[in-house]
């Protein structure tokens, strides 16, 4: 079929053995004129090394301040099909489980009322229906709602919480990621649909240190599975692995804290020094499993390198007994979040993420305000400043001597 635009640069991206987004856009373009214009505009951008999308504006569905990401072409005369090319975020189910039937229904909506292109899934976790005109937004929203789906978050709001497949499919999960993700999503609907924050806020729940949602780098609040007791060892299976590979080379020497030993008596782990990094368990999944006292570490503050540079989350709560809190509808966790948001609301400035605020005011002031005790685990790196400032409450400690 004849192409509307010659796209030599995009064509380069179809080479190689891996799937190509260009192939997919071209397939969608066979059915949709707007998607042909998308190819034209993207080719021009590659040529000029400059984007042609304008952001923002007054696009949305009635009542919600979030869920639609406005995108306009700055070359609407040349590419009328992408004059309005908005993204609709649909809140994915916990763990991304669907029936093929419901997927077909969502896809039909996107083909009929938008460009026929989707992201499964955006980095927030949502299903993204791409390329909707302003006039189609309400229809798409209503049809998704009719199938039991709601919009996700965007703008200065709680972004759609997301989680790994957790206990539904993964033996490494230390807590039920899907359950808490669903619960928190329901509990904070208002914060998600009606932006009220200084900036975005993301939750991601990973069942273990493999962190399949990459929460450590992408979520303001990262909840990552861990365990309190010992790694479970099946010594017979360890011997099987030892027949096939060099345990010292591939497991023991790669343990970050070198807390394992192996000899004719079997594998020993000094669990008090294990950081739950998951390496040994990943290499020998049939021999090793996380302990049975599972829970999560709650970390705070990561973000991508937007406004200011990138950050990783830092430890806030070393061990959170998720299963215990689940019995109480996660009330402890919800209270913690509310306190953090209150602090952010009170002291944060516009477009300042929580991690940046904490860096600005100091972790000490922050944890005091939200009512947590300072703990060694909160230290993310050795201090660069040798000077110690003693707080008055240390001096007040009787019998401890005067502070300098």
């Amino acid at each position, binding site marked *: 079929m004849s192409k509307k635009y010659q796209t030599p640069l995009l064509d380069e991206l179809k080479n190689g053995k891996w799937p190509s987004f260009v192939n997919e856009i071209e397939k969608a373009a066979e059915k949709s004129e707007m998607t042909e214009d998308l190819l034209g505009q993207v080719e021009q951008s590659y040529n000029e090394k400059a984007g042609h999308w304008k952001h923002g504006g*007054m696009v*949305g569905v009635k009542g919600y301040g979030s869920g639609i990401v406005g995108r306009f072409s700055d070359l609407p005369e040349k590419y009328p099909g992408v004059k309005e090319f908005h993204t609709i975020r649909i809140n994915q189910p916990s763990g991304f489980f669907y029936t093929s039937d419901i997927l077909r229904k969502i896809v039909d909506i996107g083909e009929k009322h938008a460009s026929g292109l989707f992201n499964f899934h955006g980095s927030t976790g949502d299903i993204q229906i791409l390329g909707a005109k302003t006039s189609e937004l309400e229809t798409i929203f209503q049809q998704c709602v009719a199938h039991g789906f709601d919009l996700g978050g965007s*703008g*200065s*709001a709680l972004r759609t919480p997301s989680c790994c497949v957790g206990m539904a499919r993964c033996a490494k999960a230390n807590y039920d990621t899907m359950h808490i993700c669903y619960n928190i999503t329901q509990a904070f609907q208002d914060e998600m649909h009606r932006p009220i924050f200084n900036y975005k806020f993301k939750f991601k729940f990973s069942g273990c240190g493999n962190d399949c949602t990459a929460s450590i780098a992408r979520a303001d609040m990262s909840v990552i599975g861990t365990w309190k007791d010992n790694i479970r060892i099946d010594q017979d299976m360890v011997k099987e692995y030892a027949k096939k590979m060099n345990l010292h080379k591939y497991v023991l020497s790669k343990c970050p804290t070198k807390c394992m030993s192996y000899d004719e008596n079997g594998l020993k782990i000094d669990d008090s020094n294990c950081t739950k990094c998951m390496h040994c368990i990943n290499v020998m999944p049939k021999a090793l499993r996380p302990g049975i006292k599972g829970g999560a570490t709650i970390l705070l503050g990561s973000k991508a390198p937007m406004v200011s540079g990138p950050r990783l989350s830092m430890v806030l709560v070393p061990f959170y007994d998720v299963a215990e809190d689940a019995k109480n509808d996660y009330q402890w966790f919800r209270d913690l979040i509310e306190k953090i948001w209150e602090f952010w609301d009170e002291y944060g400035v516009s477009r300042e993420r929580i991690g940046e605020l904490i860096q600005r005011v100091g972790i000490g002031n922050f944890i005091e305000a939200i009512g947590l005790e300072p703990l060694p685990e909160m230290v993310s790196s050795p201090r660069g400043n040798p000077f110690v400032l003693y707080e008055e409450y240390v001096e007040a400690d009787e019998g401890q001597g005067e502070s300098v």
Partner: protein
Amino acid sequence: MTDETKTQLEEAIVNLIKEFTNKKRFKPGDIVKEMEAKFSAKGVTKDDVKAAIRDLADSGRLIYGYAGGSFLSLPE
């Protein structure tokens, strides 16, 4: 909060945004702070203001926009 206060609160929010049309973009958080202070004598809380914004957006009297951050405005 009485029905009368609620009506006054909603009018105050709409008027504030009307007054500053094309001059200032109001983040929902700014409005909450502003109205909480203005109506504190009548016992209006943060949640009351949030609920009022929600009603105004649901009824279409206010709409949300986005330009580097979310803001509230009158429908065009």
